[in-house]
């Protein structure tokens, strides 16, 4: 743990703080989020200056006292002056500033904890374990609160269960019902006790083989979380899990992949064993594929694009496992992936071409008077084209995966309905051919997403013909 540890801590805080601030700004208030960012920036600046100070004082050839004293005269007034101004500013709540200040300290604690716990497997696993511990603590804090996070979701689903009382024709399904009644959920939750009993009776019927989606209106097959919600409908924890089910399944996917890869690379041998061999085949074919498109300079993008492929593939395929759901069947997930790709591509463009080159690329590379005159047309056209890319990426993946999910649901329903006269909890497995189709489309869609992202990177690199 040397001085580079401080650099790692600062880098980690530098990306955790904006993400946390974004979340806080969306759910709480912008001032709090700004305070977190300011506090973290202050603490990181403090850490960095302390590191330089210590390095200057403790050098092998005797300390450079003068430099240290100069730095001290700069650091103390300036930094603390800025800190005083930040504390006095009315727009930044003090709690947020303190939270931002303690964030790098929390990062230090977690990294050290992770390195301590994972010291047998090497320091690279330290941050992963640290983040894992953080998530565990976060989860334990959020979970067992009866009046806490799950409460509003329980009220919503109670109102949705009462919906069949109002609408005769639709038994408890569909976004339309819960959207309409979501507005007066409070009044109905308070008013209808006998409506509650009716809701229970109808709820029994609708808790059949299929879970009805609360938004979007199309049905989905039950997964582990909806089964939990069906078993324990009054617990707010299960509703909390249901609200975050896409996130939980994608997290499960990430953990599964991480475990496989860390098991394969734990004691890597020159003559690999079976698992290491399989992972090496996968990585090498992805490397060849991406470098075949981007050229040898594409090697630096292979981790991002390769991980994208493996992650999307596993998320798509996990919808076919009974009891799980593919997180990519939700537009939020695919939009998040597409936005990540979009931002990275624009950043790559700006870095490879320079800011001027990037703007000229957007304006169609004007060289002679004709192309200069065309700039007011080319610039908006290119900008809209760039914005259309994440939209098309996300919609393509979402539409394909949701489409195949709905197809499987329909055939499952058909299979159950065909022998429904027997009144047994059985069904004809009519959906099996479509599961094979789903495997094919999952793989193809993951490949297409990755290939299109690769091509977007290629178009942002300097190329001769244009």
């Amino acid at each position: 743990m040397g001085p580079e540890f401080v650099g790692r801590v600062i880098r980690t805080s530098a990306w955790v703080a904006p993400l946390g601030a974004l979340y806080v700004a969306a759910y709480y208030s912008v001032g709090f989020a700004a305070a977190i960012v300011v506090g973290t920036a202050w603490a990181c600046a403090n850490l960095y200056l302390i590191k330089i100070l210590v390095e200057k004082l403790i050098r092998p050839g005797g300390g450079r006292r003068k430099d240290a004293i100069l730095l001290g005269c700069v650091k103390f007034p300036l930094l603390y002056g800025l800190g005083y101004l930040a504390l006095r500013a009315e727009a930044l709540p003090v709690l947020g500033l303190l939270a931002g200040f303690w964030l790098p300290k929390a990062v230090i604690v977690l990294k050290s904890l992770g390195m301590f716990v994972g010291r047998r497997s090497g320091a690279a696993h330290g941050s992963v374990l640290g983040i894992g511990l953080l998530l565990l603590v976060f989860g334990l804090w959020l979970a067992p609160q009866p009046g806490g996070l799950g409460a509003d979701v329980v009220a919503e689903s109670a109102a949705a269960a009462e919906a069949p009382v109002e609408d005769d024709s639709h038994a408890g399904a569909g976004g339309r019902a819960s959207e309409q009644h979501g507005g007066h959920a409070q009044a109905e939750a308070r008013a209808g006790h006998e409506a509650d009993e009716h809701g229970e009776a109808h709820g029994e019927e609708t808790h059949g083989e299929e879970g009805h989606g609360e938004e979007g209106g199309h049905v989905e097959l039950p997964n582990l979380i909806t089964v939990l919600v069906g078993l324990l409908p009054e617990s707010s924890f299960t509703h909390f899990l249901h609200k975050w089910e896409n996130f939980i399944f994608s997290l499960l996917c990430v953990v599964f992949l991480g475990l496989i890869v860390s098991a394969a690379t734990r004691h890597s041998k020159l003559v690999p064993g079976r698992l290491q061999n399989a992972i090496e085949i996968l990585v090498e074919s992805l490397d060849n594929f991406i470098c075949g498109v981007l050229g040898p300079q594409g090697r630096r993008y292979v981790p991002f694009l390769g991980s994208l492929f493996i992650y999307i593939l596993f998320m798509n395929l996990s919808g076919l496992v009974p009891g799980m759901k593919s997180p990519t069947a939700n537009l939020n997930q695919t939009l998040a992936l597409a936005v990540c790709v979009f931002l990275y591509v624009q950043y790559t463009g700006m870095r490879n071409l320079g800011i001027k080159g990037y703007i000229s690329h957007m304006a169609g590379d004007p060289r002679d008077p004709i192309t200069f005159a065309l700039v007011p047309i080319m610039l908006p056209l290119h900008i809209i084209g760039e914005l259309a890319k994440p939209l098309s990426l996300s919609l393509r993946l979402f539409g394909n995966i949701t489409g195949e999910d709905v197809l499987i649901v329909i055939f499952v329903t058909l299979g159950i309905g065909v022998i429904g006269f027997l009144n047994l909890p059985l069904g004809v497995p009519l959906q099996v051919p479509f599961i094979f189709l789903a495997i094919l489309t999952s793989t193809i869609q993951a490949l297409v997403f990755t290939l299109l992202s690769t091509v977007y990177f290629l178009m942002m690199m300097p190329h001769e013909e244009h």
Partner: protein
Amino acid sequence: MEFQTALSLALPLGVGIAAVGSALGLGKAVGAAMEAMGRQPEAAAKIQLGMIIGCALIEALTIYALVTMFVFQARVG
């Protein structure tokens, strides 16, 4: 005609028309790929890869129509 009737008529028609367009495009693409593979069997793997990717891009436009159907489907009742 209430809007539910109109939607119930329009949504499947919309997806169907989009499917016709995509079937035409895909037929052309796969036909050209088959022809190219017949001319040069040793390049078949590359041609097949390009064909799969082209097909996914052509299919994407039909998928947009399908997604629009999903968006409106909740309102059909």
